[in-house]
């Protein structure tokens, strides 16, 4: 099944993209004794992984392969964060891994019905999801809107500082022998006898036994340069950051009004409120979803919608100033599932991309899965749902996964 798989340790893998996914993959391979080089056209950790939030969530995923991947990844993070902290020492900035749990709040009757049904299905799939009374919810979040229609507590949700996490994975990968080349853009393939054997880059040709594309929302473009079609597209998201304040939000708190309006591919604006405080004392309010290509210009309407949603959850925020807004482009695929594994069309080419609004959380399990496939080990999770074959072999798009991510 894996053209060009079964590699021997010591062989050279080139990872394209020094975001969190490329960093996690590089570290996993380096730890397994594989020679790895990570390339990035910019500096490291300055793409999507530095433009979003750091939620590690199970709460927003419907039963199915992504939930499995998310649960597995969420389970890997505590040990991973501890290992990185240990390895890199106290001089390295803190990862701020916080297993603080999430509350999903419905403020309308329809939202409540959708939420409780969704949570029941997740419980059947093994997710911890406890319905709370308004009093119980207010005990956990005293500043929450006093009359929520329904609240579900997800103790498995966590958060991490995504840029520190990316830099930490890269630093650790380097400690285990990986190399990083920044300012080096992939332009095209070097192919020999139908097999990818290297990359043409702005820094010259680079030989590679295997190439892993982890170029986030630019993965479609990189794949095209290598001669294959990969449906990874950008989906714009914007986050608001408030001024610092004494902590008044204690969990990750999302609004559930998305549950009825399941993941649509509509061009139009979608927002789902996510409110969380950071160790720095700011509150992050995310995030929007728009199909506007790579257009990064500000739209006031989007900010307004985000603000309005946050106020429905936490009315006290009305007096809190927003001091900045930032955003990025989630790498999304038509069926909202990542692409992880070998590309049957070009032996030597692998993908680890398309994580949309969940790449920070999913990076740990993605790296493990890709490493196992690349080294011909038996993966912990079934790899087929993430295989690129689903785009190659079927002409019609697979059914849309239910649920909307909150990243």
């Amino acid at each position: 099944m894996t053209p060009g798989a079964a590699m021997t340790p010591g062989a050279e893998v080139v990872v394209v993209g020094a975001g969190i996914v490329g960093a996690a993959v590089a570290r996993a391979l380096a730890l397994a004794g594989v020679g790895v080089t990570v390339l990035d056209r910019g500096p490291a950790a300055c793409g999507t992984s530095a433009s979003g939030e750091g939620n590690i969530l199970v709460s927003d995923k419907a039963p199915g392969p992504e939930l499995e991947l998310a649960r597995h990844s969420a389970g890997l993070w505590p040990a991973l964060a501890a290992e990185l902290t240990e390895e890199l020492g106290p001089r390295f900035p803190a990862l701020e891994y916080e297993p603080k749990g999430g509350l999903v709040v419905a403020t309308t009757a329809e939202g409540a019905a959708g939420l409780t049904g969704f949570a029941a299905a997740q419980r059947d799939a093994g997710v911890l999801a406890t319905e709370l009374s308004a009093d119980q919810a207010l005990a956990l979040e005293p500043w929450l809107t006093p009359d929520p229609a329904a609240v579900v507590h997800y103790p498995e949700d966590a958060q991490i500082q995504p840029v520190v996490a990316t830099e930490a994975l890269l630093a650790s990968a380097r400690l285990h022998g990986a190399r990083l080349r920044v300012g080096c853009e992939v332009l095209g393939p070097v192919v020999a006898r139908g097999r990818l054997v290297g990359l043409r880059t702005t820094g010259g040709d680079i030989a590679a036994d295997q190439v892993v594309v982890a170029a986030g929302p630019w993965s479609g473009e990189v794949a095209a340069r290598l001669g294959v079609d990969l449906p990874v597209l950008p989906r714009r998201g914007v986050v608001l950051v408030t001024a610092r304040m004494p902590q008044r939000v204690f969990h990750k708190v999302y609004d559930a009004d998305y549950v009825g309006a399941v993941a649509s591919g509509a061009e139009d604006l979608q927002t789902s409120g996510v409110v969380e405080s950071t160790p720095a004392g700011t509150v992050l309010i995310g995030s929007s979803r728009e199909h506007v290509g790579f257009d990064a210009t500000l739209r006031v309407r989007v900010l307004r919608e985000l603000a309005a949603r946050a106020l429905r959850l936490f009315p006290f925020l009305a007096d809190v100033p927003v001091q900045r807004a930032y955003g990025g482009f989630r790498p999304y695929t038509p069926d909202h599932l990542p692409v992880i594994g070998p590309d049957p069309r070009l032996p030597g080419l692998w993908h680890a991309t398309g994580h949309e609004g969940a790449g920070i959380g999913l990076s740990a399990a993605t790296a493990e899965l890709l490493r196992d496939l690349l080294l011909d080990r038996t993966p912990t999770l079934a790899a087929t749902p993430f295989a690129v074959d689903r785009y190659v072999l079927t002409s019609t798009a697979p059914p849309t996964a239910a649920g909307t991510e909150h990243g």
Partner: protein
Amino acid sequence: MTQVVVIGAGPAGLAAAVRARGRGAEVVLVDAMAQVGGQYWRRPPEGPGGDGPLPGNDARRFAVLRERLAADPGCRVLTGTQVWALEQRPGLPPEVHLLQESPDGENRRLVLAPQALVLATGAHDRTLPFPGWDLPGVFTAGAAQTLAKGEGLPVGRRVLVAGAGPFLLPAAVSLAAAGARVVGVHEAASLGRLADGYLSRPWESAGALGKTLELGRYALAHARHRIPYRTASAVVAAHGAQRVESVTVAALDAEWAPVPGTGRELEVDAVCVSHGFTPRLELAVAAGCRIASGRAVLVDAAQRTSVPGVYAAGEITGTGGAHLALAEGAVAGHCAAGGDVADPGLRGIRRLRRVHAAFARRLEAAHAVRPGWRGWLDDATTVCRCEGVTVGTLREVAAATGSAGMRSLRLTTRAGLGMCQGRVCGRTVEELLGVEGAGDHRPVAVPVRLGDLASEPVAVELVDSTSAHRMKPVEPCGTQRANRGGA
């Protein structure tokens, strides 16, 4: 009739508004401050709704500009009004999003959709860090001058003024006039560089005579107050337990590196520092204007930026002082209202602009920040005051992560992520790390309360469709509501 929105009511914006009116455009002039005048003509508020006395510099000029606009029904002056965002429109100048704060909390959000936009957002002073610069008692020269001029309050009894640029002189004079004993003015530039800047090609300065006289006047005032003036000298540390009690000054070499063994401690209770100005570029960046190297909005002879219908004038096109700002503003207003830069009516203005620009280049050459200043930092020196990030932390994190990306470095160190959003420390951090940043990319230009952000904005029609000469919503022109604003 062209509808022109001018952002910033300093010398550049006032001149632009008057000129645009002169060509018959409908004008809306917006400023965050409670009063028009900008930095140059900043005045103390005098009771509710009132205007304070006029300042000394070019007071008549200011009075004329201000009265022209106040008496003009074709110009609406919105003071106490912040532009918090610009939203780009293809082929057109951006939509202008305004916030009017009122003391009763009933803030208003307004939107303007201009046919032409003049950006005249000015500059704020730049301060280089040194050990102890975050102690109480260390002020920017601008803040000290505002207090001295506005409230008649000196920031201390024994005050030292240091930094670089001609602005040190008026700052010292206002402090002395307010009753402080100014123990010295320490200019970092060397005498040689100053001489090259000011004295070479003297014919270029001929037209900037007013400027030269102004400097001369300050120099005289210095003599009267017997203020020692030293060149190639800087404050390299401030000391004190609760607040500044003394400073160390040291001689600098031509690149501003402290010369070892020259440090000497002086007793003071306040220090005022200024190392030139840094333009307020966030709106220009938000509009999509190209920024030239050296952080100035790129403009052509008509003050046009790279964005259709967007003009820029004053300090945001490069440090030049109030007179250059006036000339650039006049050209920008004229052209934004449909005029041609070659129009004969602009001949005198074009000449003034040329002369003052040449003079500004000399000042820049004389006083521009040199890289040796890093030599007076130590690892414990705070760089980002909002987030308490030190030089040591910056260097340590950069070394630990091996990162060369400003986006990552900001988020791993938190430098520049605080209340001022890197306005104070952004350039310093970039220079310290040798990494280029996103410059002045701040799409939310001023903090906005979430409640205001969530509210419905009111579209301001520039011209009432029933009567081409009235503005809507109707509010007397030049109306200024008291106690609003603040930068």
